[in-house]
């Protein structure tokens, strides 16, 4: 047992702690700061935790879509482009067509990950939520802080990804950089509802794997990612309309190569994504508060 190996009496340690010139600010100041910046403090904690496995994050969030890009955008594209002459994809090459969709779906997949197991862990496995809960931070801020941190991560990973594809000329428009934010918004529109769900389940009985297989993957495949939604049978097109991946991908296409789409439709994409994310945030905050402060 190493826990008691230190000497029992170490007066210098106490003296240094108790007679230290360091003074914390008053509880009133702590409370006021936590009320105002608590969400940021939690985001800081989440992001610092992510730093511990940065290599995995980079591999997953940038490597993964790049892999699809090489396989589909270069391998498959040469075949597709030579057969269609680009006409099927609004006059652009297949690579340019799928880049914005991979950007959006990459954000959605990361969000699906970040808002599932880590949420369960906060409540149950490592109980990390109960640490800040005992501090001036509120349950709602614990919820919002995670959303903020993941939003920052989504923007960062989308920016890196876009920079890489732009270097290959696959995102020609000057507005392409805006799609970093629309992709992150798509990620939140999927991830925050996922978070509300994850916060509401008490026992892990493989629900997350089911969501991954039967919701995330179909949304990835049937959301106009690899072919326009319009070529799908009509009875499958509704998947695209409810899917944050489709709305995010279409917005990305408009921004990244000027895909022709009525303005009202672009507005619908943004409003739909924002509305879903916002409604889910309201629900998630309530679920967090009920579960943590019961």
């Amino acid at each position, binding site marked *: 047992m190493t*826990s008691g190996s*230190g000497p029992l009496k170490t007066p210098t340690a106490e003296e240094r702690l108790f007679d230290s010139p360091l003074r914390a600010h008053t509880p*009133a100041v*702590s409370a006021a*700061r936590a009320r105002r910046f608590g969400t940021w403090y939690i985001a800081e904690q989440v992001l610092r935790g992510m730093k511990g496995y940065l290599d995995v994050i980079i591999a997953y969030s940038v490597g993964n879509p790049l892999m699809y890009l090489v396989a589909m955008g270069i391998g498959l594209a040469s075949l597709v482009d030579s057969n269609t002459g680009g006409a099927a994809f609004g006059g652009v090459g297949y690579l340019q067509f799928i880049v914005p969709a991979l950007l959006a779906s990459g954000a959605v997949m990361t969000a699906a990950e970040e808002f599932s197991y880590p949420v369960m862990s906060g409540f149950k496995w490592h109980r990390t939520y109960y640490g800040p809960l005992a501090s001036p931070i509120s349950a709602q801020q614990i919820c919002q802080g995670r959303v903020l941190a993941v939003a920052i991560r989504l923007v960062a990973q989308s920016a890196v990804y876009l920079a890489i594809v732009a270097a290959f000329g696959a995102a020609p428009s000057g507005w392409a950089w805006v799609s970093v934010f629309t992709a992150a918004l798509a990620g939140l529109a999927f991830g925050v509802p996922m978070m509300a769900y994850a916060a509401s389940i008490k026992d892990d009985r493989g629900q997350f794997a089911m969501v991954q297989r039967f919701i995330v993957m179909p949304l990835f495949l049937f959301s106009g990612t690899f072919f326009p939604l319009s070529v799908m049978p009509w009875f499958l097109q509704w998947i695209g309309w409810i899917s944050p991946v489709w709305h995010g991908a279409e917005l990305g296409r408009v921004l990244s190569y000027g895909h022709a789409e009525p303005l009202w439709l672009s507005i619908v994409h943004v409003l739909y994504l924002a509305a879903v994310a916002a409604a889910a945030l309201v629900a998630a905050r309530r679920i967090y508060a009920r579960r943590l402060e*019961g």
Partner: protein
Amino acid sequence: MPHTTTRPIVISAKNLTKKYGDFTAVDSISFEVPAGESFGLLGPNGAGKSTTMRMIGGVSQRSAGELEIMGLDPEEQGPEVRAHLGVVPQQDNLDEELRVRDNLIIYGRYFGLPLSYLKPKADELLEFAQLTEKAGSRVDDLSGGMKRRLTIARSLVNDPKLLLLDEPTTGLDPQARHILWDRLFRLKERGVTLILTTHYMDEAEQLCDRLIVVDKGRIMAEGSPASLIREYSTREVLELRFGTERNATVGRELEGIGERTETLPDRVLIYADDGEAALEQVTARGLSPLTSLVRRSSLEDVFLRLTGRSLVD
């Protein structure tokens, strides 16, 4: 509950109640704690101690009654109440994704404390908790006692004057417990008010100036460890073992010896001010126990007297 003290009251609970559906976890309890006191809630698992602690800690809303912490209502001013506190929860909830030192720094951030304060503070706290060499380690690699010390160090990051400790030494080996008690005692000497729950008698006797004995959400008794023992038990206890089958039947033959007898499955307790004299009476009646032991009364006996049950089952 009048107190003849001029120290300000830091916790005041009046008819504090917590219900979960039909179940009443805390049933209208009242107590006050003056600043600088070390106050204990003693009781078996499920007595309502942790629920009471969560209400004091401002993370669980009461169902009825009144509660003031530092003169603030935790229901209305949760962040302000929690900003005063250091909390050591029953289960460690350290951040396993952060290193040992970063756990202290990030926790301090929740109080809005600047890094210029937190970095040197973290080093002082690590030294206090005897974890300096572990500053860069993963939390996972710490022993149970080390995790507990880190949790206590974490609770001190905001210089709290009021420390809540929920079963602080449960699950630790004796040596680790003594180190923790030593650290807590030093904090108490420095005027920090300690509120702790425990189901360990020795812990309550070591650390508490005053305690309430809680069972089924109600306060059974209140006082200092010594006064509770004086009031609810005799000076000494004679413990006799007659073997499992005989313990139950021999009880009647012991009537009249000491003030009171208590028959447990594994032994018979005779409460008497003079244990040796009681033992002589037992042998004079021709009874020959397998083993006999005379000891001082403890809080365990108080609890047994009050509830008819042992604390640790």
